[in-house]
């Protein structure tokens, strides 16, 4: 499975290639710079070693040289900065339509759930050639989700979601590490990412005993907790209508406009008073401590599923919470 003495990490995602390209450029640049400096030092050390009757020549300095060796590196630094930033921009922007996997980290275990409902522990099966988006949170301390073969790493924080994504390009089994120190068994908080051919993946997905998608279990929780009494799918509810909410701008009571992302939905369930939608009263009960991370994930998945699917966009309701600035339905 793994080489016994590798000197270069496996490249198994689209990101890996672009990270490696910049890395190789930097290695070449550093080698060039160090060889240049070390050669100069060596040449000077030999050429100008102390000799009888030869005194040093006193040189005060040279502003022209100083400017040159400040500006040229600065220029090179700008190139590196832009190049690195471009890669990062891509890394931090999950593509639309990615398969979503919810990750809950805890001391010292990774709990993962696919949007189809399949659960895994310390193992993540993903299909080759598809975008996979991770929505990560922690039950206790900070962890970090790290797959060297994909060149991705994202800290996993308690109390909020962070996201990451990758596009596997090579079937195989790869290390999953926790990269943020998290206590006694930090180095034992490891697992595997298994990239399967699409057909194998479908097999694997249907093989497990998942009882319905995350959205459907989210819907059950939504009913059980009584959320549906206020959040109705018409405009008559005491709470905002959640249909089509995800990803839309929301006008708040205090005048701010924020985007309804996973963290907003999460916060609005746990501490509803934090961001009250314009036109509504802060009457929703606090659910902090009443729902588990897994239930919360299912609820978020359910709210996201209320968005009209891209194909049937015309038929779905395009409702914005009342009071909010009417917004045209964007192409999903």
């Amino acid at each position, binding site marked *: 499975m793994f080489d016994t003495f590798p000197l270069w990490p496996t490249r198994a995602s689209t990101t890996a290639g672009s990270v490696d390209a910049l890395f190789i450029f930097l290695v070449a640049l550093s080698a060039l710079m160090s060889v240049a400096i070390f050669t100069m030092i060596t040449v000077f050390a030999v050429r100008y070693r102390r000799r009888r009757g030869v005194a040093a020549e006193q040189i005060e300095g040279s502003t022209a040289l100083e400017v040159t060796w400040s500006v040229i590196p600065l220029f090179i630094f700008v190139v590196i900065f832009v190049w690195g930033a471009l890669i990062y*921009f891509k890394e931090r922007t999950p593509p639309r339509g990615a398969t979503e996997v919810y990750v809950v980290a805890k001391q010292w275990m990774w709990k993962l759930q696919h949007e189809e409902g399949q659960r895994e522990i310390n193992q993540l099966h993903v299909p080759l050639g598809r975008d996979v988006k991770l929505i990560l949170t922690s039950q206790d301390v900070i962890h970090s989700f790290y797959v060297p073969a994909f060149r991705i790493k994202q800290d996993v924080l308690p109390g909020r979601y962070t996201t990451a994504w990758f596009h596997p390009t090579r079937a195989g089994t790869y290390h999953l590490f926790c990269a943020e120190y998290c206590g006694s068994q930090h180095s034992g908080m490891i697992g595997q990412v298994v990239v399967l051919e699409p057909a194998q993946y479908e097999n694997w997905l249907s093989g497990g005993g998942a009882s319905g998608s995350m959205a459907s279990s989210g819907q059950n929780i939504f009913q059980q907790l009584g959320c549906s009494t206020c959040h109705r799918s018409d405009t008559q509810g005491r709470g905002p209508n959640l249909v089509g909410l995800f990803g839309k701008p929301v006008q708040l009571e205090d005048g701010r406009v924020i985007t309804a992302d996973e963290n907003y939905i999460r916060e609005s369930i746990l501490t509803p008073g934090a961001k009250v939608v314009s036109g509504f009263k802060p009457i929703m009960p606090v659910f902090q401590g009443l729902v588990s991370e897994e239930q919360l994930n299912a609820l978020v998945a359910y709210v996201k599923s209320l968005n009209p699917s891209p194909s049937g966009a015309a038929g779905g309701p395009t409702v914005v919470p009342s009071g909010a600035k009417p917004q045209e339905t964007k192409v999903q």
Partner: protein
Amino acid sequence: MATAAITAERENYLNQEYGIKSWLLTVDHKRIALLYLLSITFFFFIGGFFALLIRLELLTPAGDLVQADTYNKLFTMHGQVMVFFFLIPSIPAVLGNFLVPLMIGAKDLAFPRINLLSWYLYIIAGVLMLHCMLTGGVDTGWTFYTPFSTAFSNTKVIEAGLAIFISGFSSILTGLNFVVTIHRMRAPGMTWDRLPLFIWAHYATSIIQLLGTPVIAVTLVLVVLERALHLGIFDPTRGGDPLLFQHLFWFYSHPAVYIMILPSMGVVTEIIPCFSRKRIFGYKFVALSSISIAVFGFLVWAHHMFVAGISLYAALIFSALSYLVAVPSAIKVFNWTATMYKGSITFSTPMLYAFGFVGLFTMGGLTGLFLAALGIDVHVTDTYFVVAHFHYIMVGGALMGYLGGMHFWWPKISGRMYPESLGRLAALIVFLGFNLTFFPQFILGYLGMPRRYWQYPPEFQVLNVLSTAGATVLAVGYLLPMVYFLWSMRYGKVAPDNPWGASGLEWMTTSPPPTFNFDKPPVVTWEAYDYEHIPAPQEARSGG
């Protein structure tokens, strides 16, 4: 040499008074420097002992030498001891303390009693830290990340936090003393543009100590408050924000790297001109680069947090600013190199350390460019790549500079010469051992081995074995100078006042200097690094 042996020993700061009380109650900056030297050496060997245990554990992939919890305490305390009790005080509190007044022609620091107080604070902090280590230790990593440190760790977080809190005041007082001394106590004629660059480097360092250290102190107080009184500051379950801690912590701890490296740069800037017999190339640019490192150093802290969950735009800004701080560092390297051009170079021990410094600092600096590049940082942050990078800066850079400085000024401090050939040998061993220890870690990091791992997948073993082998070589390299320095105090050749033919007021007084440094107050009429008018030392000339 014969005359030196016959002459009865002059009265100097070492022999003026004897007895333990004359040391513990001294207000002489030179004696306090020696008190610091003893205490930081003690902590260096404790930290080094932890490092060796860490490397031994990592010899095999399985966690077999110590328990996981013990390992976590080892790397935590290695970091805390080395950073707060060795590196930060190292050059400023020992060489800076000894040399700042001498170099500017002063009798002592501006506040001699505060100077002694800062040593006592350091000792109180050190005793507390020792007590903490002996009664169970702490396992949070030297970074104290929340909420692990405030709500989950069941080790002695509060005690370690308080120890570092107190040591911070020692650091602040030293910085304050230097700033005031450099402003107010310069000898007549010692204008700002005649100051040795060692002084400029310490001035820049002191500014960071003064402005940065209070922030870590407050941050640690907040950690203690949350842990002890359950206030919600960093813990999200109590309404806190764990990222707030990281911002506060790195606001100090990134500039702290410059507290460690700037003085070392100052040392190298003294050594290279001396052994090239040349004035420094681009005096003003070297001085200015120290100040700009200190200023820009405060603006880059969040580059430790690119995967921590900060916004995309924050990451962009901190990446860009990080490249700005690289420019003054590059300027220094170029100026050191240019100083050698058309010089008259000898390869004495301090010069070998200076070469080592430039080489290792260059590698550390260049790998910093990798880490500041956002796309690459995501992959290599929190791996051994980072571990290798900061050891190249903090050990390869700061420690090489410290050892170079110790060899350069040892004749002045002790009045004795160390054995030159052993000195060169040790410098070589340190350089080779260092590279063998830490270069493999760059590769390990890019392969993806996370830091702070007690056990690791077997494919990482070969590189780890190399690293451990290097660490044992390095240990020999560090023990050797301690042995021959001690030896030289009794058996070393008596040092002349200016054995290297160096510029600088410290070489114009006797070795070792009298208690009040100069028999008559110096008046300065020349520029720093005036090597045109200073004869090269006798020995090198005849040997040339």
